[in-house]
């Protein structure tokens, strides 16, 4: 299978131990798999936390979790899904496939790559160790000051938040730097920056957003830590600090983070949809520019998370207008994907199903995004379940469905085994039913006045029915992931068939064996267009540009 190359040279003797060879690996494919496997485990833990939340909210006055446990669980659910699930899954895919797709033998800094993985894994374990050491962070993933100050959060919970988040942000920054430099430096001959596969382009933009956004998070977390440990008063309102300062610094990171989470999945969409439609990506340059535009705009809209904080009318209008604008490049992508499918000869394998699910679900998240960007509507729905519904359509309906599409698409390349299509389709439909049952009624509940982050609610509010309905949906969704888990386990235990190019792909990763050998390619292929493999298969219909 994968070779031992790429480990530290002085550790050669230790390679007899398989475990150690994985622990010390600097091979981008192995690190990619480590990232994906670790993140998938964290993702399942975050999912279990979601189920606990749903159980607690299934009935008014339920006693499944007390308020203290509930607050820890919903905080850790958010932190886990964002920092330990979605982001590392994206970095894992990028680690494995960016070098393969650009015709490189590894990432440019393999040892740095290992460092960022281990920072992530240990950061995650550190964060979770808090459960055993006095409790997990319990003030929400955005940890609004002054509630996070010592006066209101004694103990170590928020110190775990600060230190854990700093470690994870450094890990992601290092990973982003590696991805950026790899894409700049290691592209195959003939692959100009406008001819990289769209997934690679999206990872480039994502990583650029990352290196500019994460420092802000580090600043926020570091200042909080100083407040708590050295007694500075940045956010300590009782002694001259300022609560808004926290929100500005945090959301300057926090909103770009949304695009860090969703652009990689959009990149996967832009690979899967063309291959399964048998057509090139419609309007490649328009999609590339819209991705870049989203990247730039993402840094100018942070205060739309703060519409209800008493901002001046002029700021409200600026941030509202800016936020509306992001809808335009997003719309360009959606319509370009539809146009890619239009007139294609579609193959309805599981990757395309999840991709179509992404389109429909993400559109809902986008539309409700316009709703919450409209200031007067936001004054009603912010901090309610409407927002929870909105961002789950973006992050579940978008990011997660995109990742699942990528999982089914690239699994044969990573393992030499095809996931079961039957189980795949079953899991797709189960998840689609389940997720809509969970997340759609949230919009209604928000409009019906249900604030988010409440551990219980009175019976006379009329919220009970749809909460129970959502809980049922949550378990159906969980069933869908159970099917995926079974699919993974069964497939991994089966004999590999090593299909080199099972989907009749377009890009360089399909020109090498499955799984690829050490250093990926016997010979680095020369590239003339965006679909080198298509050109090789169809010289008569080769891309002209």
């Amino acid at each position, binding site marked *: 299978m994968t070779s031992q190359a790429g480990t530290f040279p002085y550790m050669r003797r230790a390679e007899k131990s398989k475990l150690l060879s994985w622990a010390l690996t600097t091979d981008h494919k192995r690190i990619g798999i480590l990232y994906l496997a670790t993140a998938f485990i964290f993702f399942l833990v975050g999912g279990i936390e979601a189920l606990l939340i749903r159980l607690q909210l299934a009935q008014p006055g339920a006693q499944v979790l007390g308020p203290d446990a509930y607050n820890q669980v919903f905080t850790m659910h958010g932190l886990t899904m964002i920092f330990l699930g979605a982001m590392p899954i994206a970095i894992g895919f990028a680690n494995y496939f960016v070098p393969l797709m650009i015709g490189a033998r590894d990432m440019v800094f393999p040892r740095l790559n290992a460092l960022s993985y281990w920072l992530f894994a240990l950061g995650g374990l550190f964060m979770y160790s808090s459960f055993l050491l006095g409790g997990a962070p319990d003030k929400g993933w955005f940890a609004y000051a002054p509630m996070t100050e010592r006066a209101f959060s004694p103990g170590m919970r928020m110190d775990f938040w600060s230190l854990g988040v700093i470690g994870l942000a450094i890990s992601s920054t290092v990973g982003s730097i590696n991805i950026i*430099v790899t894409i700049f430096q290691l592209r195959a001959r003939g692959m100009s920056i406008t001819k990289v596969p769209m997934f690679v382009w999206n990872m480039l933009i994502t990583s650029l957003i990352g290196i500019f956004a994460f420092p802000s998070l580090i600043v926020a977390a570091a200042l909080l830590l100083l407040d708590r440990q050295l007694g500075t008063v940045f956010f300590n309102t009782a002694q*001259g600090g*300022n609560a808004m300062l926290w929100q500005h610094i945090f959301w300057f990171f926090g909103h770009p983070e949304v695009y860090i989470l969703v652009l990689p999945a959009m990149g996967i969409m832009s690979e899967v949809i063309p291959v399964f439609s048998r057509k090139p990506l419609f309007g490649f340059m328009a999609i590339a520019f819209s991705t870049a535009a989203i990247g730039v705009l993402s840094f100018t809209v942070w205060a739309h998370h703060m519409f209800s904080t008493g901002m001046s009318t002029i700021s409200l209008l600026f941030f509202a207008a800016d936020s509306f604008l992001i809808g335009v490049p997003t719309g360009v992508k959606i319509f370009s994907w539809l146009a890619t499918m239009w007139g294609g000869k579609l193959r309805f394998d599981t990757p395309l199903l999840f991709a179509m699910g992404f389109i429909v679900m993400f559109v809902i998240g986008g539309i409700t995004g316009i709703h919450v960007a409209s200031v007067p509507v936001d004054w009603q729905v912010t901090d309610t379940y409407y927002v929870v519904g909105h961002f789950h359509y973006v992050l579940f309906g978008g990011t997660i469905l995109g990742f699942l599409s990528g999982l089914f698409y690239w699994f044969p390349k990573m393992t030499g085994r095809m996931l079961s299509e039957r189980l795949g389709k079953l899991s797709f439909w189960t998840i689609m039913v389940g997720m809509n049952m969970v997340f759609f009624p949230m919009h209604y509940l928000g409009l019906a006045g249900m604030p988010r982050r409440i551990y219980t609610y009175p019976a006379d509010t009329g919220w009970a029915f749809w909460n129970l309905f959502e809980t049922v949906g949550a378990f159906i969704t969980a069933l869908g992931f159970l099917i995926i888990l079974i699919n993974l386990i069964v497939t991994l235990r089966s004999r590999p068939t090593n299909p080199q190019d099972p989907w009749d792909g377009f890009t360089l990763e399909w020109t090498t064996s499955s799984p690829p050998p050490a250093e990926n390619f016997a010979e680095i292929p020369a590239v003339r267009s965006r679909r080198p493999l298509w050109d090789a298969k169809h010289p008569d219909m080769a891309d002209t540009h």
Partner: protein
Amino acid sequence: MNQATTRSRSGMDSAKVAMLVVLGSETFFFGPLVSAYLFMRGMYPWPLDGAPLARLAVPGVNTLILLASVVTMWLALRAIRSGRQPMLARWSAVTLLLGLVFVAGQVLEYTSNNMTPSDHGFGGVFLTLMGFHALHLLAGVIMLALVFFRARLGDFTARRHVAVEVSAWFWYYVAAVWLVLFSVLYLV
């Protein structure tokens, strides 16, 4: 830094590209910090407002020391570009020492202000801006120490000295950040 970087599409050494990316990222670290300071300054009277010239003695001299280190850094870089390794070692050592003197001066300045972090908003700001900058400068000192020892070992040539180049970039950058901090803390 990895000297033996791979062939590159950009025509530039990968370590240099990486350093540029790092410096871009750093800018978004100091940016929010400075913004946080200006944000607080908009709300409360800054205790150093209308500081007499004498107030500027320590930070002023310190700034001159840092600027001198930029010159010596440049001399070190120029030495290795024409292959003079002993000169590189000498100038990088001088730069490193000037950096340490600067950090010592910063500590002196901070303690002479009689500000503890918890006194008021600005004690913390002062500590944070100067502290994070000093940490960066110490990172630069470590890079220069590595350059120094490798120069003594004869690792560099006129053509192969990317570690010196990126260390110099980092050093210039940290000095430039200080000029910004000096301006907003003392002059504006």
